């Protein structure tokens, strides 16, 4: 199959960028989206042109590195699918495909489709951890955890930190990411102890990084490749409110 790509090209962080058109020819429908880009890049290299820079690592939907805005939807048209797990059979012959980087002040473009997402790392450093003494590994069943709590924590822990929530949100808000991390840790007894401090510190860092605020449009939930629910945002809001009330005493 053949498709026409419109790709954001930008030499470096401060260089101006623009959409550039490429013909992707002789594409197999069984190729993944990233394999299709690899093929286009081989063609560019053969012609002596700069290949399109894009982020990727595991290519199996678990690392959160791939990050493409495809035809206006973060990670493309398929639900609960990362860009690397998307296949060309989801497109039709001759289709125009627009590929852009995540757009957010907190995620500046490094080159072409690659953005700097270290803002997420700094949010994790601010509170996305459980403080424990190092030493022997504790017995797995030493602390009993109710099944529903373990399930809910696991669902939140599925977040791979790709940033699709930020990319899709009209406010470039990181609330779904932060709330997934807060839920994942604060639902478990080990993480509950630092729950208040964590919620306050992570929200403060999120604001500092220049992400927008949540207006509850739920666009994030719709594009999240791991189907994190906006219910976790309600949980973060509760944690934050509780922490604020506690700290006022």
């Amino acid at each position, binding site marked *: 199959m053949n498709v026409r790509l419109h790709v954001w090209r930008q030499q470096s962080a401060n260089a101006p960028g623009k959409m550039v058109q490429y013909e992707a020819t002789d594409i197999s429908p069984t190729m993944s989206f990233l394999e299709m880009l690899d093929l286009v890049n081989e063609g560019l290299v053969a012609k002596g042109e700069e290949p399109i820079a894009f982020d990727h690592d595991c290519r199996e939907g678990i690392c959160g590195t791939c990050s493409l805005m495809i035809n206006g939807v973060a990670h493309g048209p398929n639900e609960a699918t990362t860009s690397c797990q998307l296949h060309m059979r989801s497109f039709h012959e001759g289709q125009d495909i627009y590929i852009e980087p995540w757009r957010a002040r907190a995620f500046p473009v490094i080159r072409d489709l690659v953005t700097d997402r270290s803002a997420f790392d700094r949010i994790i450093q601010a509170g996305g951890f459980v403080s424990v003494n190092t030493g022997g590994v504790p017995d797995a069943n030493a602390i009993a955890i109710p099944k529903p709590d373990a399930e809910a924590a696991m669902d939140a822990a599925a977040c791979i930190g790709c940033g699709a929530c930020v990319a899709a949100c009209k406010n470039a808000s990181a609330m779904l990411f932060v709330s997934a991390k807060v839920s994942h840790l604060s639902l478990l007894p080990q993480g509950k102890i630092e729950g208040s401090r964590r919620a306050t510190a992570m929200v403060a860092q999120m604001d500092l990084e220049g992400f927008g605020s949540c*207006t509850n449009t739920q666009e994030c939930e719709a594009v999240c490749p791991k189907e994190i629910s906006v219910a976790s945002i309600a949980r973060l809001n*509760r944690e934050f409110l509780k922490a604020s009330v506690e*700290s006022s005493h």
Partner: protein
Amino acid sequence: MTSISSFYRSSVGCKMVMALTGIGLVGFLCAHLAGNLLVFKGPEALNHYARTLRDYLPILWVLRVGLLAMFVLHIVSAIRLTQLNRWARPVAYTNKKNVRSSLSSRTMMLSGLVVLSFVLYHLAHLTFRWTHPEFRELGEFDVYQMLVMSFHSPYVAFFYCLSIVLLMSHLHHGIVSLFQSLGLYHGGLQPVIRAAGAGVSVLLAMGFLSIPIAIFCGWIGL
């Protein structure tokens, strides 16, 4: 004090202030509509209600000041967060699809600003009577006559109806959103809150729209 200011400075705290003031404003709208619907009982009922309100002037002023404070806080927070949100995306997408978000959720500032302009006109029109000095000659409390006369103007009636429809849109998203902002939107409550958001916004709008419709159809007259 420092904890209140750091709460409000945070985007999450600021949004909670919007939610709390939103609840207060919805409460006011319900009470205001209940009063207005007395127009269907006739001039005596409506004017008596208006006069009774003024008889309790100190209480009325407490309510007015509270309402004004909520309105101002709501608007100041809305402008602050909207600016923050625009700042957070300096480069727009050339191609962006909305997958799930509703039109009302994406146009909250627009619907809010139209409601604001309506409220300002409404105050100038009926409370201060700047736009219609002739109303001053009607005597103090002939609210009924002011109301019926006003809706005979097609411009006033149109602006009123437009504002009410946009208010409905504002609340269609706003009521569900406030529960989420306060952390109450979860589990089995979600369908109940969604139904309540749709129900309250549509019922309020129908209530407010029933008055110009009744006047247009001649069911209420001078």
